[in-house]
């Protein structure tokens, strides 16, 4: 039974799918379990019938006593009561079991579908949606999807019960029935009213709680600094203030939640009182029997809680539909990267050709226009330029993470759009700017691209990165656990693992987005040595941020606003004194070991342009 105070903290959501569309689709997910669902529905109906039977049988028994005083008939009735109680329990058992199975299966299927859908989305999808939102769609929205159906089933049982009992009461004595039922609207209104109050109070208290928590967090994190500077008394006073605030906010929210049941119970009891008085009068006038009077009394006790659920059904149902919409939106999203064929890719030498490529990201920013560029097989190319110059786009286009809108991109002379993407990616090694590790051991991470690799292969590869001595500083060597997202390792160590992973994969083309985060000097040396090993004999596009990398590249390409403005080796470009020299002064000057603040500038012979963006 859905608790009537559920779902108060969900956010508003603009709906674009129609309710009827959503309901149809939800039903289609339950269709494979149609038999199960029908059984559950039947059990629901039977259960309600039996629940309604209970007070009726008791009422009958009382009447039997009053009139015939036949103990045997009463016994029979008691046997019926027992049987109906036991049956009701059995029905409920099966109902819970079957609906758990049906719901469990549906949610599992839905989760699998949404996960697969997420995996097949292209990279622009992940740029648009935060990972938190995506995750919640797969786990919690799929849950809420299922509640739409369980809510509806519960509603069915509760409405059935209500109408059964109300019908019987009305048949017995419509005038008393109306009196008994008169308290019902009050209950519904109070329940709805509380919900509305609680909703706005919840939103307010959530916001203020978030603020208070942030405060508490900060005041607490500052304890070390406080002790450093001997400011304990001030910190304590501040904390007390913030804690007091939090107390008041929590208290107010708690009053509301705790106040509702006493009020609802009181209303139900007032209903009982009404029935007692007027029902009693009716018994005096012989309009109804004592048993019926008892029935009327019992009905209030049976109905007031289900009523609150019925009252809150619509808004909870809407929330469930909103969740379903988010799920379907995910499943229906159009992929932007489309392959026109699925040709197998067995071997690549690594020649990359951009021909008149036009690329616009997100229909708002045009990045590349009439872009022409060739990378020979085995060549290492370093890309430099200001932010927005197009560096990372080039890498992402070759990796087929984004779709270009015009021109051609040829790999080994073949159109990249004709490849089986899976095959193609196997020949591509990508090292992103921030290395990502999966929780597990270092060895697990190194063999991620080729899970079937043996331990010896993994160990050999690890040794090839920077002479392998990075392993000796690890507590358990290759079996060291890296923690969530690799947090147990330092930034530099994570990069080394990422390099090893690509090395094991043995791709023909490498796309490397150099990290900008700083790394301790020893590890830095190992990374540079590892890069040397990795880049040998492979085509590589490097978005370079390190001076040493640039110096070791075969060719440096200088990009500016989507065009190649300069090309050559480091020494040649420095002497030219052009855009590259300017970039050097801005981004690479401080990386030289002989750097001193304010020194080391290279002459720039071309007038400076006003670029103030960073890299």
């Amino acid at each position: 039974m859905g608790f009537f105070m559920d779902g108060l903290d969900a956010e508003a959501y603009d709906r674009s799918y129609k309710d009827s569309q959503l309901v149809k689709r939800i039903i289609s997910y339950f269709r494979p379990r149609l038999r199960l669902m029908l059984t559950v529905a039947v059990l629901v109906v039977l259960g309600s019938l039996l629940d309604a039977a209970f007070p009726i049988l008791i009422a009958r028994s009382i009447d039997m006593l009053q009139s015939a005083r036949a103990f045997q008939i009463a016994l029979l009735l008691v046997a019926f009561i027992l049987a109906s109680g036991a049956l009701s329990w059995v029905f409920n058992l099966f109902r819970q079991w079957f609906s758990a199975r049906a719901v469990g299966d549906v949610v599992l299927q839905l989760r699998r579908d949404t996960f697969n859908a997420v995996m097949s989305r292209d990279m622009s999808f992940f740029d648009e949606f935060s990972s938190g939102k995506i995750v919640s769609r797969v786990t919690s929205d799929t849950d809420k999807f299922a509640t739409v159906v369980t809510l509806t089933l519960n509603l069915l049982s509760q409405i059935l019960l209500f109408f059964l009992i109300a019908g019987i009461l009305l048949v017995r004595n419509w005038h008393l029935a109306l009196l008994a039922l008169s308290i019902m609207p009050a209950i519904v209104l109070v329940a709805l009213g509380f919900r509305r109050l609680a909703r706005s109070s919840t939103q307010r208290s959530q916001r203020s709680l978030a603020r208070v928590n942030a405060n508490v967090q900060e005041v607490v994190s500052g304890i070390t600094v406080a002790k450093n500077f001997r400011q304990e008394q001030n910190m304590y006073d501040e904390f007390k203030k913030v804690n007091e605030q939090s107390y008041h906010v929590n208290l107010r929210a708690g009053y509301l939640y705790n106040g509702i049941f006493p009020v609802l119970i009181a209303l139900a009891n007032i209903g009982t009182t009404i029935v007692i008085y007027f029902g009693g009068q009716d018994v005096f006038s012989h309009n109804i029997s004592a048993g019926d009077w008892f029935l009327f009394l019992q009905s209030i006790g049976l109905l007031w809680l289900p009523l609150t659920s019925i009252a809150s059904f619509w808004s909870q149902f809407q929330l469930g539909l909103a969740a379903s919409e988010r799920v379907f939106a995910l499943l229906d999203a159009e992929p932007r990267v489309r392959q026109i064929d699925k040709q197998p890719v067995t071997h690549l030498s690594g020649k990359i050709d951009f021909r008149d490529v036009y690329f616009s990201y997100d229909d708002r920013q045009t990045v590349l226009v009439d872009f022409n560029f060739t990378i020979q097989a085995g060549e290492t190319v370093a890309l430099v330029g200001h932010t927005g110059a197009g560096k990372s786009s080039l890498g992402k286009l070759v990796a087929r993470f984004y779709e270009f809108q015009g021109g051609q991109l040829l790999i080994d002379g073949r159109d990249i759009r004709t490849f089986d993407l899976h095959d193609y990616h196997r020949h591509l090694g990508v090292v992103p700017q921030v290395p990502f590790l999966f929780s597990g051991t270092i060895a697990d991470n190194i063999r991620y691209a080729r899970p079937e690799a043996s331990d010896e292969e993994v160990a050999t590869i690890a040794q090839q990165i920077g002479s392998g001595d990075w392993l000796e500083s690890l507590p358990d060597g290759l079996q060291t656990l890296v923690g969530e997202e690799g947090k147990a390792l330092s930034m530099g160590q994570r990069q080394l693992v990422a390099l090893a992973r690509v090395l094991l994969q043995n791709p023909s083309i490498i796309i490397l987005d150099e990290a900008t985060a700083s790394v301790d000097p020893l590890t830095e040396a190992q990374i540079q040595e590892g890069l040397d090993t990795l880049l040998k004999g492979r085509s590589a596009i490097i978005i370079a941020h390190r001076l040493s990398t640039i110096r070791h590249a075969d060719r440096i390409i200088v990009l500016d606003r989507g065009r190649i403005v300069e090309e050559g080796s480091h020494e040649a470009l420095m002497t030219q004194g052009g855009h590259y020299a300017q970039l050097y002064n801005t981004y690479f000057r401080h990386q030289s070991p002989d750097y001193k603040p304010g020194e080391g500038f290279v002459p720039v012979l071309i007038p400076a342009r006003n670029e103030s963006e960073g890299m």
Partner: protein
Amino acid sequence: MASRQEFTVTGEYVYNRASPTRWIVSHFLRYKRYVLAYMLTAILANILINSFIALLTGAAFDAVSRDDASGRSVLLRITLSLLGVVLVGVLMDLGARLSSEIMGKRIARDARNELYLSLLGKSQTFHNRQRVGDVMARASNDMTSLSDMIVPGFDIIFDSFLSIVVVVTSIAFLNVQLLLAPLLFVVAFLFALRRYSRKLNPVSDAMRAQFGTTNAVLNEAVAGIEVVKATAQEAQEQRKFGENAMRYRDYFVKSGQIQGRYLPTLLVAFALAGAFLHALFLVTQHQISIGTLVAYMGLMTILRYPTYISIWTFSLVQLGIAGAERILKLMKEETELDENESGYRAEMRGAIVFEHVTFSYGNTPVLKDLSFHAEPGQTVAIVGQTGAGKSSLTKLVNRIYDVDAGSVRIDGIDVRDWNLDALRSQISTIEQDIFLFSRSISENIAYGLGQKADEAAIKQAAQDAQAHKFIQGFKDGYETVIGERGVTLSGGQRQRIAIARALLTDPRFLILDDSTSAIDSATEDEIQQAIRRVLQGRTTLLITHRISQIRWADKILFLRKGELIDEGTHDELMARCEAYRRIFSHYEPPTAVQEKVASGPLSKEGVL
């Protein structure tokens, strides 16, 4: 400066920390009035709502059965009393709920204050060993468990227990024979409840844990999607996720099965039927009236509600006590370092000597037979792989840790012989993660001096730290509030403010753990100038990623697995240490062009 070994507040309430239950009880005892009020109102509410209404209903039945003139007036009287009972009952009920609410929230608030105070009273050693932010975040979850345990946990349990007692007592009051059914039911119910929770709890726990695991797998796949796609491993991730989701589904179904078999519901049905039968029998024997039967049935049906609610509340209590235990453990933790009240106090010159220092952290050896020395004002750069012992070395200086063998001496006196406060007040640490308060910039810079810092000194420190320019760039200048409700500063800006803060307190000894790097050279110029300024005239132990800082240091220590492999100046090490050369090997010597302009008087734009 006046020092406080333990921070205490006058008039602080003392709680009993012997065990979690005693601690919780001592918190309750602080609010004796509320506890009393709660119990009174809860008992009254229960009696009125559960018992009186049922009894009055029964009386009404009897009145009606008499079928004579007095019956009507009795009915009227009963109705009026009922209204009164309902009214008073709801007031009492509200009173009970609200007082339990106040108690629960107050206890949570007090527990938080208590924890915070105890944390403040711990030594700096304790704090520097753990991230207090993490500790408090954990404690706040436990605080929530604590508060939930009281409200609604205790509240509902007490209420259910009370209901059962009141119902049984009322039935006894009606007719002692009628106790048969309810007592049997209560016993059977307790057994069934225990059996049910024993079956359900492990499944619920497993389900929750599995949900967490599934979520973690999902999270990872999404966060690392670039790697997944690039290595064409979507199938692997789908398999992992599918397996986990399936396991969750299995637990979900199992849980549904167990919940379906919730025996107490069946027991209630049996109990009601049995009670009815028994009552009917007694009616036919003329031992009780129909009114009594009605009242009896009314009371019995009340027993339905405790059966539904209790399960959930028991687990709340379990979680609450577990949380209390963790909080207590944290508060009772002590550090073994002695504060050395009578130790050496003097103005530091800043000469430091490590002699045959050996240090282990728990069972892991960190430093082995390490010896070096530094003269006052020297900058010593420490270089080594992650885990080589660099940070631990620095923590031995201000006695976050103490050596296992050998000695650390400042100005010739062993640090353990120094008065701890005198030692630490002259040593400053600038950490990797710089903490700034959500206050104005000037307040942050002046933090150490409290209210005593004057504007001119703050500005001077900011200028020396190369922070003045960017501070002036903000609309409110030095009064700009930083942090969550204000401006967000970049890593380099935060570092410079921390440097200004350190400059203002002017320590003799500086430990600088510098692991940031600027994106562009102009910012780097500023930061490096600030660092240079703060290094001047101080003995500094420097851990840094900037190779140019290492290059220009007075002395370089090269650590490997806790041992000092080599020490010397940059040129010395380049000549004789191959491992050290590796660091610089990828940076080729400067080109001819650069040599020309290395010391030339060119403008910033370098336009010829």
